[in-house]
């Protein structure tokens, strides 16, 4: 199995400056490959300290400059936030030249209302924008030009220069979190990037349906999913438990706040987000602490042995070809994040590399 490092650029509490966060996040991301990781990943977010990577393809371009062997991935480019998907196709094509084709592009739909608002995009159109924009980009990258006539996006023929030099088949993914959306990605031929908020075992059966639908639609196997999880690894069992609880709870609290996940009214009547209403009601009723515990149950934490077992379990459940770990989140001090990363890299990572690419 391949191993990825996910950078989040979080600065919710502003205990340090954005500048310090950037300096340190970059330092850790540059450590990933020497420590044995195959790839570096990040996520698009705007306008708050929740996550500060507004152009993930630009960050990956920076990382491409640091190494001639590192693989790169977005988890995700939030495609409905882009007014002109053909520009994103250009950015992808250019980046693929920089890194000689070692790029995987994950697209997402986004659910941060503040980001939709500040970027001037109607959240109720997000699903439609996602489907149209990913189709426009996928076709564009295969044909070398974008041309599309959709309900939302209309693109007169536009050459992508530099021309894509390698097919993106099997390299375009969709980040999915909510129940029921995995199967939707079979038809457009997208791989699945699992950013889990619910039990891995629940995802397993959905993946089976997706794989069958993919086979039927495309006459080929779906690309292996990429599994993402938050990691806290420490040789001391007690410390691992306490610190994981502390940082993962803070992280999850930040998620609930950023997305207004505890406010059902936030999603009421927003097309495409119907099942967020019930989820939000559930979070509101259960309280953030209880929900944070559910979140933790899905993630990877404990001694190196416990982390290894958990990732083996994830691998077995979803058959991921790659696992991406997130080692620094909320306002975790960078010294702690680096310790976390290094412990994982020296103890867990070598064992994971022995796992087959498919379960």
């Amino acid at each position, binding site marked *: 199995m391949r191993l990825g490092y996910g950078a989040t*650029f979080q*600065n919710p509490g502003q205990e340090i*400056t*954005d*500048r310090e*966060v*950037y*300096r340190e996040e*970059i330092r850790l991301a540059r450590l990933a490959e020497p420590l044995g990781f195959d790839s570096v990943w990040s996520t698009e977010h*705007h*306008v*708050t*300290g929740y996550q*500060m*990577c*507004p*152009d993930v*393809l*630009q*960050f990956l*371009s*920076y*990382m*491409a*400059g*640091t190494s001639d062997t590192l693989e790169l991935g977005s988890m995700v480019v939030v495609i409905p936030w882009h*007014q*002109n998907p053909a*520009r994103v196709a*250009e*950015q992808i094509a*250019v*980046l693929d*030249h*920089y890194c000689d084709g070692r790029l995987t592009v994950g697209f997402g739909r986004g659910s941060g209302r503040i980001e939709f608002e*500040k*970027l001037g995009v109607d959240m109720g159109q997000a699903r439609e924008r996602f489907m149209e924009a990913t189709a426009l980009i996928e076709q564009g990258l295969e044909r070398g030009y974008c041309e599309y006539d959709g309900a939302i996006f209309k693109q*007169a023929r*536009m*050459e992508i*220069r*530099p*021309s894509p*030099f390698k097919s993106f088949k099997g390299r375009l993914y969709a980040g999915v979190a909510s129940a029921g959306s995995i199967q939707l990605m079979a038809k457009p031929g997208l791989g699945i990037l699992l950013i889990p908020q619910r039990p891995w075992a629940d995802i397993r059966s959905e993946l089976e349906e997706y794989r069958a639908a993919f086979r039927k639609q495309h006459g080929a196997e779906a690309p292996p999913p990429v599994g993402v999880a938050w990691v806290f690894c420490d040789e001391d069992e007690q410390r691992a438990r306490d610190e994981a609880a502390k940082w993962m709870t803070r992280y999850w609290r930040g998620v609930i706040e950023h997305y207004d996940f505890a406010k059902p009214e936030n999603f009421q009547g927003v097309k495409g987000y119907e099942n967020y209403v019930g989820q939000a009601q559930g979070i509101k009723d259960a309280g953030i602490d209880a929900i944070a515990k559910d979140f933790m149950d899905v993630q990877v934490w404990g001694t190196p042995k416990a982390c290894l077992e958990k990732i083996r379990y994830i691998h077995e459940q979803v058959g991921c070809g790659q696992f991406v770990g997130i080692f620094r989140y909320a306002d975790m001090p960078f010294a702690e994040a680096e310790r976390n990363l290094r412990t994982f890299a020296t103890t867990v990572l070598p064992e994971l590399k022995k796992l087959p690419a498919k379960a």
Partner: protein
Amino acid sequence: MHVGMCIPFMNHARADDHELMKGELALGDLAEPLGFDSLWCFEHHFTSYMLSPNPLQVLSYFAGRTRRIQLGTMVVVLPWHHPVRVAEEVLLLDHFSHGRTLLGVGRGIGRIEYERLGVDQVESKALAIELIRCLTSTLESGVCEYDGEHVKQPKVQLRPGPFQSFRGRIFIGAGSPETSPMCAELGVGMLVIPQKAPEAHVADVTAYREAYERIGAEAPAPIFQNMFFVDEDPVRAREEGRRQFDLHYDAIIDHYEFRGTHMAADKNNKAYAAVQRLISTPEGEKAWKDAMFPMNPVGTPRQVRDQILDQRKMFGAGRFVAGARYGAMSMAEGERNLRLFAEKVLPALKAE
């Protein structure tokens, strides 16, 4: 004198795009070891002219593989960008490069680019002016907010925020005496990017200085850029240099559709309409190329040095950006040109 180099990713020879990209990136890698002070990239879309749709992205790549040199855009064509996103991208580059960003901005005149990006070219000048105002203030404050005729952006706080001022690091690629005075009003510098005869560029610079004088401030010395051809053999330099530049000018003619007539209808592009009229005949085309040619230093190392120093004096420039590979030139010729320049011309310029 500060001396930078630029990589335009020109593919007028229609080489394989991947080969072209790798070759130009490899030339860019030489900037730091050869002793240049900065590396610059352009923005162009859709044609073989320049395979460089996002200068902030390519400079982020170079931020990952350089330590010392500054990284400049010449230019980010603002009307082709969303005001929030372009500010975010500039701030990211500054974080990746630890503050080594130099930001040239401009308006762009390619019809094919305006059309396919879905931007109204008729309003390009007014739009560019509003976007420049919006961006310069956003980069200082970290807050993007603008209420103009064309740009309406509700207040938004950008993260990551700026960590050092952009004062002294922003430049407008001003190509007419009407636009260059705007630099003074915004307190920014000026880029001289060759697109006409030297005297015409001098007129732009003069208007720029006068505008600064009117507000009682000293104009920052302009940055001037050009492509050069240097060879120890003066005959080869003259002959091969002219041949390479004729191909380079052909690339410009193709991309900007200078063989057409569309500029005549555009209130913003009177000067370019005149170019279109001129090159509508073979004699006129040659006359236009003859007028452009003096902007490009061509000759032995000594001749090239002298031409650059003459231009520096003419523009009162403080920084110079050199382009070694352009038009339809092969990578091997481009690298030869660059290395000879770095060895024989660069030290003298840096000593100035």
